[in-house]
């Protein structure tokens, strides 16, 4: 009887797990495995039987200067995007929630700002990219350049100057991400008991002390989550670069990222084997980042 019950229980669990596990196997694991195989072929996307060419593709990518440029851009984004976004989002969240006079409420109009900050999150990435093409336009019709030109400063090639384009992309990514993390941190702040802030204030803590001594340590968990999310965003950033920048990752490859190079090789040059090899490399970068961030973020939870 006991055995039968155990069997039935197992059946019950299996029946629930089967569907998601099969979906995961078919649509996630198996493409990964296939990518590893395709990476070792010369497949051009359509031939029935691709030729096995061993590690040739990997050897080729070692000398692919464009791809390595893309990798450095991803790494730069991996460092800069989370730092800048989190700093700005924390600042805003702090002002919106506990930055007011009493230290327990937001500054005036915080309800309004809360909505405004979230706007970018509502827009589709493609729309954001197209919008910013207009914002960055290098003539009198550009939103940024028009005032600059009124003051007699030449038009700035936000997207057409290879030294500047990367920073423009970073700016757009931050602009788009901040709103969500303001909300995330606000939620985190809401979870901190109000008496902590009151106690600190009674002890004479100013806003800055309050932020660094109370808010930040108590929010540390949320910040770590944000860091991982933003790191992943930085690893597979694609749409903004592909749609917004000149020559899709240019000018002169100054904004290209790994995902863009994979796409370019697969769907523009029809080198699916090589693109898969790039994908495998990107997979290991992402995996490395995930392992690293899990390692570094192990920390005791604070119980209130």
């Amino acid at each position, binding site marked *: 009887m006991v055995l039968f019950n155990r069997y039935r229980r197992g059946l019950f669990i299996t029946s629930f797990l089967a569907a998601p596990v099969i979906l995961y196997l078919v649509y996630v694991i198996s493409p990964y495995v296939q990518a590893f195989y395709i990476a070792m072929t*010369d497949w*051009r*996307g*359509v*031939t*029935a039987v691709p030729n096995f*060419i061993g590690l*040739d593709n990997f050897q*080729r990518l070692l000398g692919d200067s464009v791809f390595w440029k893309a990798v450095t851009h991803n790494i730069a984004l991996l460092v800069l995007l989370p730092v800048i976004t989190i700093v700005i989002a924390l600042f805003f969240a702090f002002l919106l929630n506990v930055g007011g006079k009493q230290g327990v409420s937001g500054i005036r109009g915080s309800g309004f700002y809360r909505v405004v900050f979230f706007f970018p999150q509502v827009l589709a990435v493609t729309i954001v990219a197209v919008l910013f093409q207009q914002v*960055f*336009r*290098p*003539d009198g019709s550009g939103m940024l*350049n028009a005032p600059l030109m009124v003051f007699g400063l*030449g*038009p700035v*090639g*936000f*997207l*057409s*100057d*290879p030294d500047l384009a990367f920073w423009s992309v970073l700016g757009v990514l931050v602009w788009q991400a901040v709103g969500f993390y303001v909300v995330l941190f606000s939620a985190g702040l809401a979870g901190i008991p109000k008496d902590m802030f009151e106690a600190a204030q009674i002890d004479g803590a100013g806003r800055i002390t309050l932020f660094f001594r109370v808010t930040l340590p108590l929010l540390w968990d949320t910040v770590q989550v944000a860091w991982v999310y933003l790191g992943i965003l930085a690893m597979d950033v694609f749409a903004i670069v592909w749609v917004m920048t*000149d*020559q899709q990752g*240019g*000018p*002169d*490859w100054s904004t290209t990222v790994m995902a863009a190079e994979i796409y*370019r090789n697969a769907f*523009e*040059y*029809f*080198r699916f*084997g*090589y693109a898969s090899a790039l994908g495998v490399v990107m997979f290991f970068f992402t995996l490395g980042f995930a392992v690293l961030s899990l390692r570094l973020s192990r920390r005791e939870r604070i119980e209130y």
Partner: protein
Amino acid sequence: MPNTPQITRRELLRGAALVPVAGALAACATPASQPAPSSAAPAATSAANPFGVGDKPLEVWIFDGGFGQAYATDIHQPLFKSKYANVEIKHNSTKEITKVLQPRFAGGNPPEVIDNSGANFMDFGALSQDGQLQDLTPLLDAPSWDDPNVKVRDLLDPSVIDIGTYDGKFSVLGYVNYIHGIWYSQKVFDDNGWEIPKTWDAFLQLCETIKKSGEMAPFTYAGKHPQYLYEPLLTMAAKIGGNDVLVDIDNLEDGAWTAEPMLTAAEKWAEVGAKYLMQGTAGLDHVQTQTAQNKKQVAMLPCGSWLENEQKSTTPDDFAYAMFPIPDITSSDAMPYGTLHTQPGENFIVSAKSAHPQAGMEYLRAMLSKKAAGDFSELVTTVTTVKGASEGRDISPGVTSASKAVADAGENTVYYRWYTWYGPLNDEAKAATGQLMTGGLKPKAYLERMQKKADEIKNDSSITKYKR
């Protein structure tokens, strides 16, 4: 489709990728044994009926894109009918040539005439490999529709025959001629007393004059799409050093990019980039720069003969588009003044395995008549590959100017194909040309970089190579 070349190029690449798709699909859809080609005794040939058109129907498929399909039903087909009243014409059109027609080829009953154009055209290489393309050499050697003493071959721009030749057989007829040059407004030039420069020094002088006048900027190009600028650069190099400069580049010859004429051309354009570009050029696309020209903010830009049609909605009525060829660079240029870059498009094919290929060829012969080509030009405001077809017609200032340029050029037309053959080289050329024009790359470094990429492609065994 003819309006934005950078899309066309991408479409071409995308199309190139479809080769194997078509092959694979054909492989599984093809019946084991093809029905014997319906070689019912062809009708007798004669001077008036050189291919022996019988009385079987003729099926025509038109790509319904930028040119629409009215030109086929209103111009070409009535003309054909006027001679062969007993041949029933089955007219069809689609925006998805491959999807609709690929199964017909696989099934062994393709239509006779196809305008194989647009984003989803069937790959010519694949069709040729399968023996699906009717050899159009008899068409070239046939007498022209209008004059029995003139062969069809003599009506066509030589590049049409070169580019339409697959596996040694002329099998693809490009009907529309894209003519590249420097475009300007005749009105603006007349109003300001500016003259078309015949030499490079005069061109620079003109740029200087325009700049000093304060009226507008001298020059611009679609900075976001630097292929608009490598076009005049390559054409200039061909003018200085001869057509072989471009043939060598197409064939990935050693040192083709770093050749002396290329260096001269790169230096000339880098100078324009440094001194005479409209502000912000590097960040503007083709529509933005062309509209700036319509607004008289800039005097000249390099483009092709689709420009006038593309800008229809923003061009002032009295703008009077016109173009001039690359000026003389040195006193000893290999090619004379007037040398042009022309590239045929809107490609028509006749299916070899169709029921009535003779009628298909005859249909093309009718299309190449002066009347058909001229009416077509007028209807869709463009230039055809038929020499002199728009003569004596007042179609539009741009078409008149471009047609005159072609007539003046005569045999001196050039073209290149590497950008459709080697996508990575095209992308590198865009990136590097943009840098050349903004001063980020010196001419020598620019060419060395291009050569490096060309060598890389040449030595990459995984990339299929082409020759011309």
